[in-house]
């Protein structure tokens, strides 16, 4: 509503002016206005029901059809409505009439003033026409005069032209005659450029008129001089003392003298080659002897290479292109010249590249490589410039290739360095495990060692990552090459370096397990334990930490397959498990060996009555305790089955009286000679099967259980191979009770120990032709004394 109000229309508040005001406007405006819901519109709406704008019933529309409108009204409206409509319409008609009258009045005045203006214009035009006629007459007079003058001057003009022609001819002739003298003078003054210019001006004329003897002479002279000149130029050219710019000048002059371009190209290039090769040789000298250390550091080397060799190369290329390639000569020459240049550049750059590569290979130090990266960057940057000069050459690609190779080589070296660092760490640990038995009272603290080794390895990895990261720094030109964006990060750094290193750690771990299968091997068990913990730590946290670090530093955009963290973790865990199993095995074997020797070497039939626990058993307990301490440093306690602190004695009494007796019992009764073990068999049915060399869990109790299981099972098998006398049996009883007293606390399920010890005593009794067990009280006394 606001738009029409603000417009030139009368306000809708005055219904009187409403209809005429709307009438004067174009149809479109009216339609727009009455299309809006206002009181006036509604009144209209009554007149044109169904509002058919533009249709035959729209009284304001262009297609208004009175017949249709009438019929429609008659059909749709009641009488009163018709009446209203009629009055309304009459009112409107009247309004329209009055409007028309005002319009007529308004326009009449305008019409009169327009008539006046036209009349005035007519008078003015007449005056103008007269003046124009006069002007035309004057112009024709002037034309006549001018024609007259030019005809008189015609003859003189022709003469002047002729004279001037003769003059120039004469000048030219004079120039020609003077030419040899001038040329000699120029040559004397070493103004070769001037001479060439003169000669090239005269050459065509001389050539044209060479049939005339006088010109012939001049031409001969000139040619002689010019040949001389060319000779001199060439000498200068070959001389090589002059700089590139002089050289270029020479070439230009020679070219103007129509010397064969190809030859010149060759000469130019060979000359340039001489100089560049000299530079290369200087570079090579800087490289030092093949085995000796390089004289200068790599940045300096590359710098020098860039500043001297590459910039000269650029100069050569630029001048060459200016001289030979960009001339508007024959296409063939340009192409030929270009080809020659490319070949030339490629061959020289190849030598240069090989030098650079040799230098890069000398760069073996695995410390900070910022120098190398900067050198490579500079190298790459300069090559870009060169490549821009000569797009046809493949120097840029080869340069990038060299950088990529260098980077790969670097990664490989870092991997090797990491591995050797790791090995060194291991050696250190080995030494510190072996050495300080005498120095300190305590054996070296495994936890500390573990801390040092893992921290130092981690630090080393981090520093290597920073070094490698330099390759992808923003300000390095080659860092946005696709290789460095993608493959370098994912395949090179992540896979090649980090994953490779982690895998090699696991690999080393596995090797420890495999190689030491024979006779104990040389690996100290403590190292196995330490490595196992290390691998486990890697599995739980370190691997994911390192990989996250890597992924963060090297935003890996490449979508090539990468090793997932989980598989690495699994590998590490497996390695840890194997190491721990191996540790258990090795320790178990050490103790087993002691037990076995003790059983095998003794004459059990003829032993004396036991008075003491055998020293071996004490040794076993001692060793077990020290292993317990060792493992406790690195692994958590672990769960054991609930037990009371006093349990050993109680269980043992059961075992030694009722259970043991029951096991012997059948042996005394001769009636069932073949079913001797029935009872024990039934017992076994209810006890669980024991896996001796089974994998252990990552906790102390499990490890210790494994070791003890192995030891006791060996004890059992050895006992079964021997025959015992009465006292032999009693000795075993004493030993077992002693073990019982001390070993239960190490294992997760003391019943296991009981069961195995039970079995040992039982088997011993079997292997004894005269089984008289010792009194339990006596055993206890002996053990407590021992």
């Amino acid at each position, binding site marked *: 509503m606001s738009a029409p109000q603000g417009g030139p229309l009368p306000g809708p508040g005055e219904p009187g002016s409403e209809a005429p005001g709307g009438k004067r406007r174009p149809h479109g405006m009216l339609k727009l206005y009455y299309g809006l819901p206002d009181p006036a519109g509604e009144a209209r709406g009554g007149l044109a029901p169904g509002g058919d704008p533009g249709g035959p019933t729209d009284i304001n529309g262009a297609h208004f059809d009175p017949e249709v409108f009438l019929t429609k009204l008659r059909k749709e409206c009641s009488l009163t409505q018709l009446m209203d409509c009629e009055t309304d319409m009459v009112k409107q008609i009247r309004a329209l009439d009055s409007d028309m009258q005002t319009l007529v009045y308004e326009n009449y005045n305008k019409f009169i003033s327009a008539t006046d203006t036209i009349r005035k214009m007519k008078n003015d035009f007449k005056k103008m026409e007269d003046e124009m006629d006069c002007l035309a007459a004057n112009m024709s007079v002037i034309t006549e005069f001018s024609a007259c003058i030019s005809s008189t001057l015609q003859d003189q003009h022709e003469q002047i032209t002729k004279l001037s022609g003769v003059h120039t001819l004469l000048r030219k002739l004079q120039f020609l005659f003077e030419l040899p003298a001038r040329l000699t003078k120029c040559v004397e003054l070493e103004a070769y450029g001037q001479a060439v210019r003169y000669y090239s001006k005269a050459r065509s004329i001389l050539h044209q008129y060479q049939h005339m003897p006088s010109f012939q002479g001049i031409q001969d002279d000139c040619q002689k001089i010019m040949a001389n000149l060319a000779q001199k130029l060439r000498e200068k050219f070959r001389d090589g003392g002059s700089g590139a710019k002089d050289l270029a000048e020479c070439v230009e002059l020679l070219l103007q003298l129509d010397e064969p371009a190809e030859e010149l190209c060759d000469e130019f290039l060979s000359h340039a080659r001489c100089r560049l090769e000299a530079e290369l040789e200087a570079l090579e000298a800087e490289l030092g002897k093949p085995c000796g250390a390089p004289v200068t550091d790599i940045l300096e080397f590359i710098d020098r290479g860039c500043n001297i060799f590459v910039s000269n190369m650029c100069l050569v290329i630029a001048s060459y292109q200016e001289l030979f390639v960009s001339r508007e000569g024959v296409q063939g020459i340009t192409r030929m010249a270009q080809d020659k240049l490319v070949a030339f550049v490629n061959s020289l750059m190849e030598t240069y590249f090989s030098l650079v590569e040799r230098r890069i290979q000398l760069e073996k130090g695995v410390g900070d490589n910022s120098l190398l990266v900067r050198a490579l960057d500079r190298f790459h940057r300069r090559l870009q410039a060169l490549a821009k000069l000569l797009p046809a050459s493949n120097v840029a690609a080869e340069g990038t290739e060299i950088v990529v190779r260098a980077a790969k080589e670097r990664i490989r070296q870092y991997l090797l360095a990491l591995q050797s660092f790791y090995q060194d760490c291991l050696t250190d640990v080995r030494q510190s495990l072996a050495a300080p038995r005498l120095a300190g009272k305590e054996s070296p603290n495994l936890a500390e060692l573990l801390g040092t080794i893992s921290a130092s390895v981690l630090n080393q990895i981090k520093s290597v990552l920073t070094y490698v990261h330099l390759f992808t720094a923003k300000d390095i030109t080659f860092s946005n090459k696709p290789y460095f964006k993608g493959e370098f990060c994912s395949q090179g750094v992540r896979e090649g370096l980090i994953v490779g290193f982690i895998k090699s750690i696991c690999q080393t771990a596995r090797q420890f397990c495999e190689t030491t299968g024979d006779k104990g091997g040389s690996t100290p068990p403590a190292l196995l334990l330490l490595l196992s913990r290390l691998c486990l730590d890697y599995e739980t946290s370190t691997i994911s930490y390192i990989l996250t670090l890597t992924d963060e530093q090297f935003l890996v955009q490449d979508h090539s397959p990468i090793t997932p963290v989980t598989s690495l973790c699994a590998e590490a865990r497996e390695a840890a498990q194997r190491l721990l199993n191996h540790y258990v095995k090795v320790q178990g074997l050490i103790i087993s060996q002691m037990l076995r020797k003790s059983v095998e070497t003794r004459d059990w039939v003829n032993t004396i009555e036991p008075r003491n626990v055998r020293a071996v058993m004490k040794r076993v307990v001692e060793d077990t305790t020290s292993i317990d301490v060792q493992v406790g440093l690195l692994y958590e306690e672990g769960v054991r089955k609930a037990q009371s602190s006093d349990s050993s004695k109680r269980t043992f009494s059961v075992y030694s009286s009722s259970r043991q007796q029951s096991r012997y019992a059948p042996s005394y009764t001769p009636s069932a000679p073949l079913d001797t073990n029935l009872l024990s068999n039934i017992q076994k049915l209810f006890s669980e099967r024991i896996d001796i060399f*089974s994998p252990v869990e990552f906790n102390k109790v499990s490890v210790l259980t494994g070791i003890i299981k192995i030891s006791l099972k060996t004890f059992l098998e050895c006992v079964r191979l021997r025959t015992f006398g009465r006292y032999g049996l009693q000795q075993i009883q004493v030993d077992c009770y002693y073990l019982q007293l001390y070993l239960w606390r190490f294992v997760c399920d003391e019943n296991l120990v009981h069961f195995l010890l039970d079995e040992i005593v039982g088997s011993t009794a079997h292997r004894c032709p005269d089984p008289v067990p010792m009194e339990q009280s006596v055993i206890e006394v002996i053990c407590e004394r021992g």
Partner: protein
Amino acid sequence: ARALTPQIAETDAIRFLIGTQSLKYDNQIHIIDFDDENNIINKNVLIHQVGEIWHISASPADKGVLATCYNKTSDSKVMTCAAVWRMPKELESGSHESPDDSSSNTQTLELLCHLDNTAHGNMACVIWEPMGDGKKLISLADNHLLLWDLQESSSNAVLSNSAALEGKGQLKFTSGRWSPHHNCTQVTTANDTAIRGWDTRSMRQIYYIENAHGQLVRDLDFNPNKQYYLASCGDDCKVKFWDTRNVTEPVKTLEEHSHWVWNVRYNHSHDQLVLSGSSDSRIILSNMVSISSEPFGHLVDDDELSDQEDHHQEEKTKEPLQDSIIATYEEHEDSVYAVEWSSADPWLFASLSYDGRLVINRVPRALKYHILL
């Protein structure tokens, strides 16, 4: 009980000989007949009075002849001796008694001869020449390898040759096998962690596998079909397969047991089947196809494969034959010290554990048909 052997000369009935080990009673040799059709076990008992039996072996030529190693305890000294015995005639070829006759009118073995070991120490085992006429024996006594000739219908044993292990420390043979190849001129022995091969003609060492196992080597067996292949087992829980021409590395290693492996045996006719018994009281039957004499994998050339789909299908079904564990038998409750294949039925084997339990098992039927067809 530790001693078990198939009656090798018997090829019709499934029969095993078992020696008992008891310090307190008369030891016995049990002759176990297994009636495959009726699933019935028959037992005959022979008294073996001289001592507990540590090792038993049956003559390959004469059903009635067997050798034992036994412990003799006298004057508080334990000595392991060896002797050759003959069982009563009527027991030679199976039982004639009803199984319920438990009164067991036990009969005694007839001593044929004694293998005199007074000079050599404890007998670890006695091995018969596998292909011969049952006249040659080898016994291992401490560090001696003794070759015996039985003369005068086995009533006299003459020491015909011997060799001794020399080295620092107390070297002791633990077990040995006589190779059925090379005209029975090779014997392999185990001592500590090493395996040695001997030539019986010169009694010289022909090969030496140092540190064959991480710990004691417990048993050996020859592949019956591939002359250079040898299986060994030991205290490091492993079963290893060797090619005696290249003894630096085992051909294959199995690590399935969780305790010492006491026994390893090739099947006599299908050498991919290998049994091993261990003191973890398990018996493991493995299928070592890749190192057996059986054709394995692809017999059909590639081009033939491509032109006929039927062939292709057949090949497919054969291919999954890979080295694998066929079965683990856990019937025993105690350490298993002996496993043996039956000499009569190649699909049947017996195992013996410390508590005296004898278990007879069959190769799974599916595998049997797979191998046969």
